[in-house]
């Protein structure tokens, strides 16, 4: 805290500081004479200083607050000269407002001494307002001249967020364009992820051992895209279990996700021609409480000892509890999540892990649906653009050109 003060004194306008100090001494001396007190005390005790009158502040501008709903006005004023003459005499500034010049002014807010701006956040768009600012001391207050009228205006676009808007438009357009391309061109190439073989292997082993497959689709409901991505993988897993005649157990956190899973699995059983083997009761609601759910699933693992555990979707602190309990029961474990904080635990404790975006890509790739694959292609192009953007940004910065960075600025 000491440093800024030093810097202030070192500033070129040292003269003003000196002059002010001189004024201060004079004023203090006058006060001392009037009140008959010791000079040394005078400049530091505001109670004494209150016996002379405060000079009023002066309003400089009334402006509409930019980029808002049109419900606020920025007020700026010149500080009362008293503040620099007798520090501590003014305690705060009150901002007063009236709907017309001759109606009564009411207080809308206050700021501590030394502050010269205030945003009045309670105005009606396009309505005129008049303002005064009062400097308030311990026993007296002085009101500035009236200023006005000021208006607040609605804005239809938040200009500070232009960079965000551009990137939203860019990514959305890329995805949509490549979905269209995929519709016309048919299937596109997508790198094969090693997890596909792992899925088959895990279900195959469960069948051999005559144990069931446990599928957990995470803590979130269908409004989390990860849960929906998990569904496309579930469709493939269910096809396999239907094929092999292995039981598929799905405890759910949310009722909506539960009915979605039921529908997905039912369709898969239908596709491989075994609709009779579908058992809706294997897909059931457990609880929406995080650790209540963990306690329940751990119980299932220990009692039924499923041979393959899938954890695909959004996971939180329970990730490692699942993975370690599953390991003790000897299950092959396949995980995938876009929750960055939980990835380390899955990577360490599971046999295969889909990292972040791979969760989304795996579903698309497994379904073989050209539309989904097309949107993955769109994501890839976006990544390529990010790559170029970053490289270009760094290179330009080294030449002192900053606009690529400025575009991304959000205040």
């Amino acid at each position, binding site marked *: *805290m000491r440093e800024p003060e030093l810097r202030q004194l070192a500033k070129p306008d040292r003269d003003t500081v000196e002059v002010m100090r001189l004024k201060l001494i004079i004023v203090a001396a006058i006060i001392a004479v009037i009140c008959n007190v010791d000079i040394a005390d005078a400049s530091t005790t505001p109670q004494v200083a209150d016996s002379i009158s405060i000079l009023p502040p002066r309003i400089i501008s009334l402006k509409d607050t930019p980029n808002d709903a049109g419900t606020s006005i920025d007020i700026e004023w010149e500080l009362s000269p008293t503040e620099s003459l007798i520090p501590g005499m003014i305690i705060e500034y009150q901002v007063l407002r009236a709907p017309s010049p001759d109606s009564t002014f009411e207080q809308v807010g206050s*700021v*501590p001494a030394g502050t010269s701006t205030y945003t009045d956040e309670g105005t009606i768009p396009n309505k005129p307002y008049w303002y005064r600012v009062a400097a308030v001391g311990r026993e007296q207050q002085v009101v500035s001249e009236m200023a006005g009228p000021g208006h607040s205006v609605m804005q239809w676009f938040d200009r500070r967020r232009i960079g965000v808007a551009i990137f939203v438009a860019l990514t959305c357009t890329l995805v949509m364009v490549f979905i269209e391309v995929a519709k016309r061109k048919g299937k596109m190439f997508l790198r094969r992820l090693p997890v596909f073989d792992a899925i088959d292997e895990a279900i195959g082993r469960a069948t051999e051992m005559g144990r069931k497959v446990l599928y957990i689709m995470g803590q979130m409901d269908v409004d989390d895209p990860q849960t929906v991505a998990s569904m496309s993988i579930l469709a493939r897993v269910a096809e396999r279990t239907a094929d092999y005649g292995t039981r598929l157990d799905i405890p759910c956190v949310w009722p909506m996700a539960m009915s979605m899973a039921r529908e997905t699995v039912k369709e898969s059983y239908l596709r491989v021609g075994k609709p009779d083997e579908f058992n809706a009761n294997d897909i059931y609601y457990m609880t929406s409480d995080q650790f209540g759910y963990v306690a329940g699933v751990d119980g299932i693992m220990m009692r039924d000892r499923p041979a393959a555990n899938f954890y695909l979707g959004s996971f939180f602190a329970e990730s490692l509890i699942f993975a370690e309990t599953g390991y003790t029961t000897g299950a092959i474990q396949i995980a995938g999540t876009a929750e960055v904080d939980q990835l380390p635990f899955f990577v360490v404790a599971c046999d295969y892990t889909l990292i972040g975006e791979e969760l989304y890509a795996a579903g698309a790739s497994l379904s073989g649906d050209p539309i989904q694959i097309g949107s993955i292609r769109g994501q890839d192009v976006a990544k390529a653009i990010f790559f170029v953007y970053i490289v270009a940004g760094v290179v330009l910065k080294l030449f002192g050109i900053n606009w690529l960075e400025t575009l991304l600025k959000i205040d």
Partner: protein
Amino acid sequence: MGVVERLSRLDRRYIFLAVAIAVTLPIFFPIGLPIEVTAPVKQLYDVIEDLPERAVVLISIDYDPSGAPELQPATLAILRHCFKRNLRVLVLGMWAPGVPLGMKALEEIAENEFHRQYGIDYVNFGYRPGGAIFLINLGRDVHDVCRTDVYGTPVEDLPMMDDVHSASDIALVISMSMGVPGSDQWIWYYHARYRGKLATAQTAIGAPRYYPYLQTGQLIGLIGGMKGAAEYERLVQTRGLATIGMDSQSAAHMLIIGFVILGNFIFWMQKRKR
């Protein structure tokens, strides 16, 4: 079966037992590893050291029992420091489940250890709802937003509050915080309006986010997690919960590293055999 073979099939329950022992033993047999005091903790200590006697310190209990292992030790250490320096303490909180924690802390330190008098040396206003709005009003008029204390006593009957009316009568605010409402509100709605000294204690997860506020001077001190609390305990020269906890932490961390080394040793031996 060789040793390596047997170790590689080590029952996990022995690992669990080892963890329980590593965390428990230091509770009974402290190791007392030296704890380096970091600057943000020392800063807060110095500020409290420099306060004039009988100055008022406000401690805001903005956490619930799940934050208690990390934040309660810090609360105790700060209370101890305040009473040692003969300061007056005003306790309140913006988290309803935190009230019992504040009461417990005062009982332990103010009553049992320092035998201070309630209403004269310290007061407890319990849970105060309203978040940001409450803080704005608090700075303006303490009596208006704290009409009765946690036991239902009117504020007029608490002698300590006779000269505590607004922000300018409070020498220091310390927000013990694990989320919202908490330190953010104290910074944005209290400190921004009324200035005055403000410090915070945070959980280990939350602490890194507050370093920038230290640089700008909005915070005059920061206690991060159990480690920060242990540092403060060292400064006030007590062996509190956090100091014991840090021994447990050291033991548990070393145990894990030991298991990693053991695991790799087994792995290496098995690979060599093949």
